[in-house]
């Protein structure tokens, strides 16, 4: 447990002392602030619906940047050799990297909470959809970070890792459009791979176990494949 705490601390330090974290946070907050203000002035509605879909897109774009260096950089600099010759398991290394990156996503979501507070100050928003929206975003983040970690552990080049996960995310975002074109029963299978299809109910305040199960399954699969990729030496 102490070894895992040391691994997690190392990953958190590496992430939060790198410029990447602050660039991502800044870009995220600037874009979100603009969208929130504009939407509020135009609609005068105390809801965060639009904001949640905006965050959904921004997570697809920023998570690859957060996760690209996780293993790829260690492979390129060969520090992975120093790390894994120590008595630590691949599971511990992967999980520490995963939790550290997920914590940055959590910070992004927590900072966007200021918009919910603003709504509460100016009006009386409905809190149910807000809580479910944040739950959906966190689960989405958990799935995306695991997939990003997997692509980073597949290749030795950070940029390739980022492009690979970005392509995967964009494909999973719009895959339902292709899914509807397929014959039964393939259409349902492909449509159910869509990130947006599973996220929409959360953003509008409907909680389904199947949607949460989808994101959790993707996260577990990503983590499992990351461990396998790291163990393949």
């Amino acid at each position, binding site marked *: 447990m*102490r*070894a895992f*705490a*040391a*691994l997690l*601390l*190392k990953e958190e*330090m*590496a992430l939060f*002392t*790198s410029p990447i974290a602050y660039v991502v946070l800044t870009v995220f907050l600037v874009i979100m602030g603009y969208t929130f203000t504009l939407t509020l002035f135009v609609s005068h509605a105390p809801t965060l619906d639009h904001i949640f879909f905006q965050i959904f897109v921004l997570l697809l774009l920023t998570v690859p940047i957060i996760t690209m260096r996780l293993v790829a950089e260690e492979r390129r*600099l*060969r*520090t992975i*050799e*120093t*790390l*894994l*010759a*120590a*008595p*630590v*398991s691949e599971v511990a290394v992967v999980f520490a990297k995963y939790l550290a990156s997920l914590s940055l996503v959590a910070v992004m979501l927590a900072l966007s909470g200021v918009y919910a507070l603003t709504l509460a100050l100016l009006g009386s928003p409905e809190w149910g959809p807000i809580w479910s929206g944040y739950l959906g975003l966190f689960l989405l983040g958990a799935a995306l970070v695991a997939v990003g970690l997997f692509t980073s552990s597949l290749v030795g080049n950070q940029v390739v890792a980022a492009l690979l996960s970005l392509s995967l995310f964009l494909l999973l975002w719009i895959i339902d459009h292709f899914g509807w074109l397929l014959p039964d029963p393939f259409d349902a299978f492909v449509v159910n791979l869509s990130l947006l299809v599973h996220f929409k109910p959360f953003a509008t305040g409907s909680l389904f176990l199947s949607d949460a199960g989808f994101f959790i399954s993707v996260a577990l699969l990503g983590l499992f494949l990351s461990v396998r990729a790291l163990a393949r*030496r």
Partner: protein
Amino acid sequence: MPDMVIVDTLFKRYGPRVAVRGVSFAVAEGEIIGLLGPNGSGKSTILRMLAGYLPPTSGGLRVAGIDVAADSLAARRRVGYVPEDAPLYDGMRVSEFLRFMAAIKGLAGKAVRGAVEMAVGRLDLEPVAGMPIGKLSRGYRQRVAIAQALLGDPPVLILDEPTNALDAYQVIGVRALVRSLAGRRTVLLASHVLAEIERLATRVMILRDGELLTSDALGEAGPARRFRLRVGGPASAVLTALREVSGVASAGLDTAGSEGRYLVETAPGQLRPADLARAMVSRGFALDELVEARPDLEQVFLALTQRASAAEARAA
């Protein structure tokens, strides 16, 4: 002494390429083993497998009595490993990195502080303890890499090319350090620099294309025994007499020495120095000096690698 490292018919394949082919050897406690071979001969691969970083394709590996495949974590706790080129976290400060490595090696609380202080003191890292690793010179980087290997006081130390790219002073420093670290520790050291191995190792293993060509103690690794003699009398008569002694394979003037010096080569086990001395004295020559010449590692290395190439050519 018990064997600290046992390697049994070890194979490592990377796809179709075989990096290590059926290597077997054992290392006793306290030995300093030098792994010698050209680049790509499988030295680093063997050391990485011993360090628990690479899984072998087949074969057995035991470190300090623990099967590396069955209990990799326990085996890794007993090994300090310094990878080639000292890959370290450049963004971390030296003391921060050593504390991190101590923690992931299972040390806690006061033990972390004690181990880090010991390693910093042993490697003279006090002046750079607060500096980021990325700003260190190569010599200091190498010392930090060795310092992390010493954390937890492992009984087996593995160093892959520890003096690579260091200047002469740094090489002397690292060499002295490795000597001081040995003793009760078992040290395995890889290098492609012959002089390095000759100065440090008690036993040398020569590898070529993933195969172990020899694993003899230095001084016994030679294909033949050689003696240097200083004998009075005319050179032609001395050489004739030397060649007549049974067991002498060849005799000639020792070009490295002054006049009256000769070099005799025998087949292993064919001739003892006392027999050679008796034969020369009985022939009426004044024998001033007779010493056994240690085989030159460079010659052993070239002879073995060339012999292996010739055998392959014959087989083809």
